[in-house]
């Protein structure tokens, strides 16, 4: 019996301390570090040549110090749709979240750098993205939820259901939501369909489609 293959990851981060920390963290959690790069051109090259299972990318990279990391990731995903990419940033913007989710192929993550503090959750997010799932930072959703008006159907949701929808939009699986809300998975499986019915959305079991549906709904 062969051991399951360790996921190969490319890390792109320009600050040595953070890059080193990420590499240690991921290596400690059974990832194989395919490459750890510090700038945009190297990242593009690594993504094209090493074909990693997942890439963890800082938005801002040299040499331009603009959103070079994000652009490299988006370009690589255009060439290889669904290439799992987890983007890290010091700030989250819905604008960027949109661009990442736009192609609808999944395997996308967008998190604040602070989330690395909670190693367990962070590694979980990397795994989820590598498996083609989604990991959206709670702040993206808070920005969306902050906007709801009085007549929004969201008002009809209970606080618990709102919490559920946040977790769903983050890309959590039913099992994870159940764990967070401390209910059984079966109850949760019914839960989304309840919420979806209240909001008038078609029910969906696919986690990615669910994320898109929730985000698209909140955009309105």
């Amino acid at each position: 019996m062969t051991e399951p293959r360790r996921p190969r990851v490319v890390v792109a981060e320009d600050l040595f301390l953070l890059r080193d920390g990420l590499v240690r963290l991921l290596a400690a959690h059974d990832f194989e570090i395919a490459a750890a790069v510090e700038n945009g051109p190297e990242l593009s090259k690594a993504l094209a040549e090493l074909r990693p299972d997942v890439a963890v990318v800082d938005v801002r990279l040299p040499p331009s110090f603009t959103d070079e990391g994000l652009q490299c990731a988006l370009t690589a995903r255009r060439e290889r749709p669904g290439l799992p990419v987890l983007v890290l940033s010091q700030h989250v913007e819905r604008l960027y979240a949109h661009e990442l989710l736009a192609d609808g192929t999944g395997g996308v993550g967008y998190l604040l750098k602070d989330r690395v503090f909670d190693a367990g959750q962070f590694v979980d997010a990397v795994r989820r993205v590598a498996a083609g799932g989604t990991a959206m930072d709670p702040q993206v959703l808070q920005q969306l939820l902050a906007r709801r008006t009085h007549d929004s159907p969201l008002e009809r949701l209970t606080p618990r259901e709102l919490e559920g929808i946040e977790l769903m939009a983050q890309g959590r699986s039913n099992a994870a939501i159940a764990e967070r809300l401390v209910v059984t998975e079966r109850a949760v499986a019914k839960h989304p369909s309840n919420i979806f019915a209240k909001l008038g959305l078609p029910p969906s079991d696919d986690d990615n489609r669910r994320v898109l549906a929730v985000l698209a709904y909140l955009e309105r």
Partner: protein
Amino acid sequence: MIGHRVRDAGLAAARGLLLSLLSLGISLVLFVLLVVSLCLVPIGVGLFTTPVVTDAVRTHAGQRRFYARQWAGMAIPAGYRPYPAAGARRPGIAGQVERCVHLLKDPATWRDLLWLLTDAVAGFVLALLPWALPGYFLFGLVLAAGVWRPIVDAGGTYWFAFVPVQDWTTAFLAALTGVGFAVLALAVNPWLIRVHFLLARVLIGASEKELLAQRVARLTETRHDALDDSAAELRRIERDLHDGAQARLVAMGMNLGAVEALIEKDPAQAKKLLAQARESSAEALAELRDLVRGIHPPVLAERGLGDAVRALALRMRLPVEVDVDLPGRLDEAVESAAYFAISEVLTNAAKHSAAGQAWLDVYYSHQDRTLRVAITDNGRGGADPEAGSGLRGLERRLGSFDGVLAVSSPPGGPTLVTIEIPCSPAPAR
């Protein structure tokens, strides 16, 4: 070609008619009023009438400047010395006297006086000819058509210009002369209007020196404002860092120190302190993130003004429709100033206007090399830059870039705020 000429001459005739009314009518009256008012200064009454009349004169001159720009494409810069705005004036009689003295000391007031008289005479003639010439031509035609006969019958020889009209031959000659006038009008009409405005420019156009003095005064003022603002900004950042991130890092260091001491004796307590330290670091990060956004928003650095305002709009509670048309990146300082101005206007709209929707238009005009921003909302209006210190502050900050802010906000809405900043596109990076 000839059609063009006729149209231009006709247009000049119509403009001449209006200008001649302004010159003879209003300029003359204002001249008399101003002279009387100045004569009354020694006995005190003039101190109160002069500012009023001067205001009227300046409005009148402003109208001529407007026509000069519209009709002849000629800029006649105003060189009036700036006077403190309404709020900063001394009240009562002392203020009134001060204002009058200020006006009397301003050479532009005296130049206006001279212009009023010149305008009523030479300006009038220059404005009269463009419509008198074609008028005389028409009259010549009417004469030649037979109208000469009753006139001659009634009063003997009639002089049409230099032609003595006595019979058909001379009447025909008069018509021919009239045609000459018409041809003359075709040739010189637009030129006459131009000369009319040139006359005004020579008399009331600000001199190079005055314009420079104005510019220096404005630069001094805006530089002062800019320095003030940046000092206040640095103070705010210092305070935020001192009370926020710095304090949290101190707490974190203390916690870690305690952990070091406890880790063997009391691992459970140490674990609790470590969790606290992590929390502190997360809070410090959140505070730094907010601070950074206030100094220079990351999206602005990464993507430029267009995407930064798009991201800003997405962040707003108020739904904002964004339309951006920019040639890549602009000058960094301008981008930042425009971003914060837009952010403040949108925040104001969300806070005070009770609007349900806002529209943001950002575009760059290559022709004027100017960044133009228009922010509209469907709220209740009534925003007054004079009353609210926010819009005033914004105006001051844009002033350092020679930018301007205009607010149109009638009670009941809608509110339209426009911002213009002259700038050039940044070279591609």
